[in-house]
C-alpha cells in the first residue's frame, strides 16, 4: 500500500533581509518540493513583507531572493497563503503582493491567496509537521 503523502506546512513570520531566516527558509521549500510531500506555505506577521513586490537589494549589496518566489509554482508549490490581518496592520494590500507563478490554463499571473487567521489555524491542525521560519 502506498504511503500517504504527508502534509508539511511552512510558516514565514520574519521580515526579509534583516535576518537570513526567510531566505534560507525558502531554500528548504525548494528542496522539499522535489520530494513527495503536500507542501503549503503561510506568510504571516512580518513574513508578509517577504511578499512585497519591487524588492531591490542591489544597493545593500546582498543577494536578493524575492525573484525566486516567482518560480514557486514552477516548483509545484501551489499552496501559498498570506494572512489578511498581518497585511492590513502593515499597510499592505493585495496590489502589493508579488507574483508566484502563472495559472496553468489562463496563463494569468497568480499571487498568494489572502486568507484569515481561522483558516490558517484550521490548516495548521491538518499538518503532519510544521516548520517555522
Amino acid at each position: 500500500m502506498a504511503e500517504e503523502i504527508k502534509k508539511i506546512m511552512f510558516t514565514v513570520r520574519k521580515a526579509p533581509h534583516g535576518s537570513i531566516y526567510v531566505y534560507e527558509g525558502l531554500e528548504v521549500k525548494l528542496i522539499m518540493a522535489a520530494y513527495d510531500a503536500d507542501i503549503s506555505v503561510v506568510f504571516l506577521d512580518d513574513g508578509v513583507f517577504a511578499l512585497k513586490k519591487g524588492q531591490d537589494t542591489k544597493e545593500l549589496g546582498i543577494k536578493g531572493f524575492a525573484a525566486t518566489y516567482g518560480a514557486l509554482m514552477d516548483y509545484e508549490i501551489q499552496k501559498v497563503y498570506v494572512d489578511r490581518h498581518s497585511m492590513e496592520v502593515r499597510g499592505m494590500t493585495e496590489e502589493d503582493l508579488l507574483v508566484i507563478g502563472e495559472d496553468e490554463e489562463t496563463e494569468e499571473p497568480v499571487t498568494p491567496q489572502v486568507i484569515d487567521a481561522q483558516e490558517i489555524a484550521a490548516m495548521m491542525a491538518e499538518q503532519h509537521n510544521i516548520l517555522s521560519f
Partner: protein
Amino acid sequence: MKIAVCIYEGPYNHEASDSAYNFVKAAIDRGHDIQGIFFYHDGVYNVTKLMEPPQDDRHIANRWSALGATGIDIVVCIAAAKRRGIVDEVLVPNVRISGLGQLTMMAIQADRMVVFGD
C-alpha cells in the same frame, strides 16, 4: 514516537541549543526514538570542535557529540555550513554534514518535529 528536532541558532548566543538538548534528553528518557537532529541557519556553529568555553560551563559541541555517539543522527546543513565556514575538518565526532534533503526526510518521516530557534 519518532521525534526530530531542528535547531536554528548557534551555541551560547541563544537558548535554543540548550532547550533543544534538554528536550532531546527528556524524550530519550521517555523512550522515544530521536529521528534526527538538524542544525540550520546559525545552528551549524553548535558542533565545531574549535569551541572553547570556560571550564566550568557546559561544552555544547561535546555534548552533541556524545549524543551522536549513542547513534542519533546529528546533521549539519551543508549550504548553511559552507556559508558560515563550518567544514568537516572542524566538526566534533559523531556529527555529519548533509543536505536539506535530510531535513526533508526528517520532516516527513518523524511523527513529530520540534523547532528550536530565536
